[in-house]
């Protein structure tokens, strides 16, 4: 491995009003390596990359690119020094073609006319060289997310980048797309480019990276060779303690049917069907996992079950009672708890205190309300108890939810929803953006909920989560359930195929196909 450093960052410190995002961070990335930066949400990975790319000036510290110090912290200077950033949120113009997007802002010209042919040619060369498989004339709006990401990468290469930064690139991809992306990144490494790759997925690190820098709370807690480490060791460096990476679940003992959904359809905003004839049954003491690429009807399914959206046809029953199109309060009062997919938007009132948030949904019932009066003492006792039981931090009922970390916000919701002993728990992306340590907690809680006899509907974009927790798995694609499996009778690869609609004709498969070794996991969009 060549010993020159493509990137040298020394003593980078960046302070935001409430948090020290980078605390004297050193980063060395060798030329021609794939260097992973891992860390929990909020560890400071994105901040470090923004400093590198010149988007954020550090309070202290120095950046050297290929030996030369970066004097001014501006993207223009970083780009000139050969750095390219593939953003988490794509910045493409939907109505232009691939080639047009690539050259946008840096058009090759012949006189004053854009040289479209030259542009197409460049895109085609780049595309062929690294296996992008992009058609330069295709419109962006016709591309999948995975292909859009490739266009972003080509854009960066087109501008001459020798150092590529990818901030959580796998968050939005299916397992197959992840594998293809990794192929591309390896090809780029072969061509001598340096790649900095941010993730909080440990499998990806082990599979792809040469070296790894681990961050926690703004500091570097470890620099290791990927070949000489384990997921457990990385997790320990990330969290600061030993974590159970995969909770083990006992065989369940399902009872009577709790939730029954039959023939459920729903219309979307443009009159298209967002749900098509969905049938689901969940028994008590059973976890049904719903897998699928986001935007394939999972959100709508959850919203209809919880009363937040109207079904156009079909029936939802809870313990035999028809709850189709009933109000959220009615459904809640019948024993449905809901962990919404977007906790800040739907799960919490950020300006409410912990104590106030912990009664949200039960504020109108005893013991929190008597004759229309709020019972503050009961609310505070309740908060104190749940804070203690769930180790919420800070342990002060009067703290506003806005001042909690993402993990603690999620814990707050979990504490609240589990506390009402629901017959049905609907959990949407329950660990999205949650630290590994808190993931362990949420998973254990979900399973204890199940063992206590609740029916659990788990919707998650994390295949590993679905596979770990589910007794049965349903795959959604374009608003329909395209396949169902017993929890341990299917591998991630096969689920992945069904998620893209490619597994048609193989639904209800019994035999589990061999698990591909080191199969990449599908991730989520990070912060």
């Amino acid at each position: 491995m060549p010993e020159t450093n493509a990137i040298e960052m020394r003593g980078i410190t960046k302070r935001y009003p409430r948090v020290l995002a980078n605390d004297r961070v050193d980063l060395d990335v060798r030329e021609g390596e794939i260097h992973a930066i891992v860390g929990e949400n909020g560890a400071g990975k994105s901040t470090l990359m923004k400093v590198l790319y010149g988007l954020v000036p550090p309070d202290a510290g120095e950046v050297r690119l290929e030996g030369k110090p970066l004097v001014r912290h501006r993207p223009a200077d970083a780009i000139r020094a050969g750095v390219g950033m593939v953003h988490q949120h794509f910045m493409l113009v939907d109505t232009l073609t691939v080639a047009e997007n690539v050259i946008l802002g840096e058009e090759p010209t012949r006189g004053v006319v854009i040289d479209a042919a030259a542009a197409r040619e460049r895109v085609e060369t780049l595309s062929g060289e690294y296996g992008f498989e992009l058609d330069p004339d295709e419109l962006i709006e016709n591309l999948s997310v995975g292909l859009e990401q490739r266009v972003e990468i080509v854009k960066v290469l087109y501008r001459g980048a020798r150092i590529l930064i990818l901030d959580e690139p796998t968050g939005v991809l299916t397992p197959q797309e992840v594998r293809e992306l990794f192929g591309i990144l390896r090809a780029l490494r072969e061509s001598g480019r340096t790649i900095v790759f941010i993730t909080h997925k440990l499998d990806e690190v082990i599979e792809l990276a040469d070296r790894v820098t681990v961050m926690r709370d703004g500091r570097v807690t470890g620099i290791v060779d990927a070949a000489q480490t384990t997921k457990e060791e990385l997790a320990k460096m990330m969290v600061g303690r030993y974590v159970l990476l995969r909770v083990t679940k006992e065989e369940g003992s399902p009872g009577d049917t709790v939730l029954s959904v039959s023939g459920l359809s729903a219309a979307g905003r443009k009159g298209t069907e967002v749900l098509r004839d969905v049938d689901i049954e969940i028994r008590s003491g059973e976890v049904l996992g719903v897998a699928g690429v986001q935007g394939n009807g999972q959100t709508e399914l959850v919203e209809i079950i919880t009363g937040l959206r109207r079904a156009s046809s079909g029936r939802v029953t809870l313990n035999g009672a028809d709850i189709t199109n009933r109000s959220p309060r009615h459904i809640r009062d019948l024993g449905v708890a809901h962990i919404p997919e977007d906790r800040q938007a739907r799960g919490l009132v950020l300006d409410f205190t912990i104590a106030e948030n912990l009664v949200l949904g039960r504020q109108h019932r005893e013991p929190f309300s008597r004759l229309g009066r709020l019972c503050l003492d009961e609310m505070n006792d309740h908060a104190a108890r749940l804070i203690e039981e769930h180790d919420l931090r800070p342990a002060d009922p009067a703290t506003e939810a806005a001042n909690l970390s993402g993990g603690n916000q999620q814990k707050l919701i979990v504490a609240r929803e589990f506390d009402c002993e629901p017959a049905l728990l609907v959990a949407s992306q329950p660990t999205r953006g949650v630290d590994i340590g808190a993931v362990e907690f949420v998973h254990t809680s979900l399973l204890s909920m199940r063992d206590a006899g609740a029916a659990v509907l788990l919707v998650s974009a994390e295949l590993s989560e679905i596979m770990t927790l589910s007794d049965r798995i349903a795959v959604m694609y374009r608003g329909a359930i395209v396949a169902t499996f017993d929890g341990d009778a299917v591998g991630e690869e096969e689920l992945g195929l069904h998620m893209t609609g490619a597994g048609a004709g193989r639904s209800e498969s019994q035999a589990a196909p061999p698990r591909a070794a080191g199969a990449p996991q599908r991730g989520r969009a990070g912060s």
Partner: protein
Amino acid sequence: MDRWTRYAGVLSPIVAVAAAFLVGGLVVTAIGESPFRVYAILFRGAFGSVDGFGLVLFNACPLIFTGLAVAFAFRAGLFNIGGEGQLYIGSFLCAWAGLGLAGVPWWIAVPVLIAVSAVGGALWASVPGMLKARFGVHEVINTIMMNFIAIGLTSYLVINIFKEPAQMTPQTAEIASGHLPRLAGALQAVGIPMPSANPLNASILIALAAVWVAWFILYRTTFGYEVRAVGLNQDAAESAGINVRRTIVLAMITSGAFAGLVATNEVMGFRHRFLDNFSSGIGFMGIAVALLGKNTPLGVLFAALLFGVLNAGALEVDVFTDVPRELILVLQAVTIILVVVGNEIFVRRIAAREARAALADTQAEEAA
């Protein structure tokens, strides 16, 4: 959170008021008067005598009601610009009911008329509330339209149907019962020399009670909790099973009831009748009061008192100096602008301060 951030809510209006006086002083200087003399006269007018302070409270009283109306709706995420219309309807119904109460003892008439005033305002506010909840029509537009309707309607009714016979003034006859007593008598009895002509009346006590009621509803009742939840995060409220539409309508109704209570001062306490066009903007001033009071019940009380001071002092300024009383309007407007701008600056300053302090901490730590 650091000390400064916590007090910013209180400090920023105070700083803004101080700055407004500074600007007002410059204006006065430009006119050729001494700002010290003018302000001295202004405060002498407000605080120099029991009579003056009585006027302060009398002026503040309706502003407390309309300020509470705006603040309460704001807590539900609603912008009630309709205080003016709601207070006209409340006042008209109050007077109309009062006309029919001949022979009814005051201890029945007073509570009845208070209730009628509140219900009148509430009814008027319920219309934009329902339009918002049912059809999602923006309440700002509808409350404004409802103002025009209320003003026009009461004007028509008082001129064409309920006008006091044999009078030129477009006003109703005096209400038959349900007068609120002036406070001068009671104050004189305990040795406070309030002139009998001072218009301050028992409505101020209702206003103080209303401040407490607004606070109690918002922070001590389940309804208030739901109102605040809807105002802060409608989607989360909906997910939690709160009926958002119902809460919006009820919040509007409560807001309107506060505005309607202006009648207790204007009709029951002061004029004892409905006078066409009597308000001239009390409802709109309520928006300023709520803004200055940061939409909290206690803040509304203090903001209304400040406006009361300015109004009461304006009289003296007008009489004793060359400064036109319009200066007071300028002062009020400048205060509002500065509160809005100042708050923004204040909050940013504090954020920057915190960042610097934190950085210093880090560096100290590093040096150690």
